[in-house]
């Protein structure tokens, strides 16, 4: 199954998120991640949605999103040069005896330690999904106690303009 990053500029109003998520659930489209935030224009938010499905499904998703009255613009980044990022906060089990190993990984991935406890550290890591997955793979043996991720956000590169 192919994954697509869809970016929708929508009115920054109550109820819009419910409209978008309702559309996905009503039509049986599967959302992998969804991130919402303000844009340079306070009246608009950008929703970055990662969906799986074949071309036909994607075509429907795009058209249905576009049809919502509150949607100003919909872009599919699949064929557009873009930058994408995901942010993860991870609490990694790391007793003092093994902490240096964890810190080394943190350095290699250019992640940051944002909180320290007796037997664990909290790591903040931003990057592409692959980078985050790779990091998680490596720290998993130490024990991931808790994790939060933002889901992907993306913007088209200036070459597209």
């Amino acid at each position, binding site marked *: 199954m192919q994954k697509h990053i869809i970016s929708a500029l929508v009115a920054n109003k*109550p109820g819009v998120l419910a*409209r978008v998520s309702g559309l996905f659930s009503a039509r049986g489209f599967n959302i992998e991640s969804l991130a919402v935030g303000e844009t340079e224009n306070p009246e608009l938010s950008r929703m970055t949605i990662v969906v799986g499905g074949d071309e*036909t499904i994607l*075509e429907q998703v795009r058209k249905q999103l576009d*049809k919502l*009255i509150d*949607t*100003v*613009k919909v872009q599919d980044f699949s064929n557009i040069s873009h930058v994408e990022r995901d942010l993860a906060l991870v609490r990694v089990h790391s007793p003092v005896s093994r902490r240096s190993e964890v810190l080394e990984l943190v350095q290699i991935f250019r992640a940051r330690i944002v909180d320290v406890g007796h037997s664990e550290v909290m790591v903040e890591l931003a990057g592409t999904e692959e980078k985050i997955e790779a990091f998680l793979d490596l720290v998993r043996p130490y024990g991931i106690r808790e994790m939060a991720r933002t889901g992907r956000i993306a913007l088209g590169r200036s070459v597209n303009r």
Partner: protein
Amino acid sequence: MGKIGAEILIDALREQGVEHIFGLPGGAVITLYDKLYDSPLKTILARHEQGAGHMADGYARATGKVGVCVATSGPGATNLVTAIATAYMDSVPMLAITGQVKTNLIGNDAFQEADVTGITRPATKHNYLVRDVKELGRIVREAFYIASTGRPGPVLIDLPADVAAAETDEVDTALQLPGYKPTSGQGHARQIRKAAEAINNARRPVLYVGGGVIISGCHEGVRELARKGSIPITTTLMGLGSFPETDDLSLGMLGMHGTVYANYAVTHSDVLVAIGARFDDRITGKVDEFAPEAKIVHVDVDPTSIGKNVSVDIPVVGDAKKTLEELNQLIETRERGEWLQRIRQWKEEFPLTYDRNADVIKPQAVLEAIDRATEGKAIIATDVGQCQMWAAQYYRYSRPRTFLSSGGLGTMGFGLPAGIGAQFGCPDQTVFVVAGDGSLQMNIQEMATAVVNELPIKIALLNNGYLGMVRQWQELFFDRRYSHTYLAEGNPDFVKLAEAFGARGIRVEHPDRVQPAVEEAMRITDGPVLLDFHTDPEENVFPMVPVGQAIDRMISGMA
């Protein structure tokens, strides 16, 4: 001097040309009703909000204008939901106004509070919760614009009681719809050229037209296309009336209960031109075997309809009317004698038919009698079930906006209130409601609305004593196990019931009495009349394509 919300709302409605409002009051809309009391708008009191909703819907379908309905908060609004969903599925322009609890109580589970914008979100084209009286004028304008443009649909405005009563002298009216760009022009010129080429080169073309043709008002264009190219034409349930069924080129309806010849023609076509239709599963049957030999041209105003259910060779996104104006100029005159001959043979071999010599009343005969008495020119509002299908098959529609039926949602109880709404919108036309005994009981309370307003609507009740369509499926596919579909033992005496409401009632039990009874009803012009036709309880709708079968595999009668 400022105005209060209710006055702003009424002014905005009048500015949009509204003349009729269908509704039922309650606490959350009492201020609005107070202002309606001496406004020039004609406010019609329904006896149930669902009735009010279908009235607005029938009004809109018959006139092409936006229908307006009102309900109070909570249960009033939830009662409207079925009517809103019905309008949504059939792309009917409608404005539903619901009262809401005061803004400071929203979210508190207050008395008669319901999350109405939440509940109706998937069943409206758009909806609003008004938080500030200053926005109200703009919201009403936006609502009308959204409801009536592009692919039309219902829009709901949820109006808290305090906002309706709040005073302001600032009314902002400029639309703020940066994200709404309805398709309004013709399709892409290159696509239109491709479509014309495909049609001109076709040997066995078929036009398949749906409700979009009626909505865009392009029936003339469709007629021109069909006649110029000698192209046989079939309509969906929603498309009935877009082409005169008395014409040689007419194939009648296609799909599950379509004619054999329409389904054969589609199956054997080499180019299928869909206009304002959406390849619904009741039309296509088994999708893989639908029009297997055809190149498919699809003209539709809604991009999401194209390529949703079947893959399309030549998509044309555009308003059907403007697109046809362009397309017709490129269509070459053709005879297509061989193809039309083949269709003529199918028509002779497999006509729509029933037992005309039976000694019980056949429901089909009732429709034919109405057709004769009204010369195919009445507005027919139907319920759902067998009665709906017979109304589609045996009345020969010739004008758009004369067949009013819940196609997409299939809402029982639609007929009577929709007929009432249509009669308000078209006071000079004859309106017949073709009702089922099950369906009629779902909104029978609206008899009162018809009586009080002295509407000369005629209700032809096809009283078969069953939830007939379900019984038919049970007969065909469930071994005649008639589980919970028998109505006769509990049915009221419909004639007495009509009389109890103050309407006329005529019982008809013999085939010879069918035509005279219809004629008699035609002479009653000062109020509603109910014709209680006791029809053959086990008559079935044929032909029939079983669910999931290819549409050329029809059952044409009981073995």
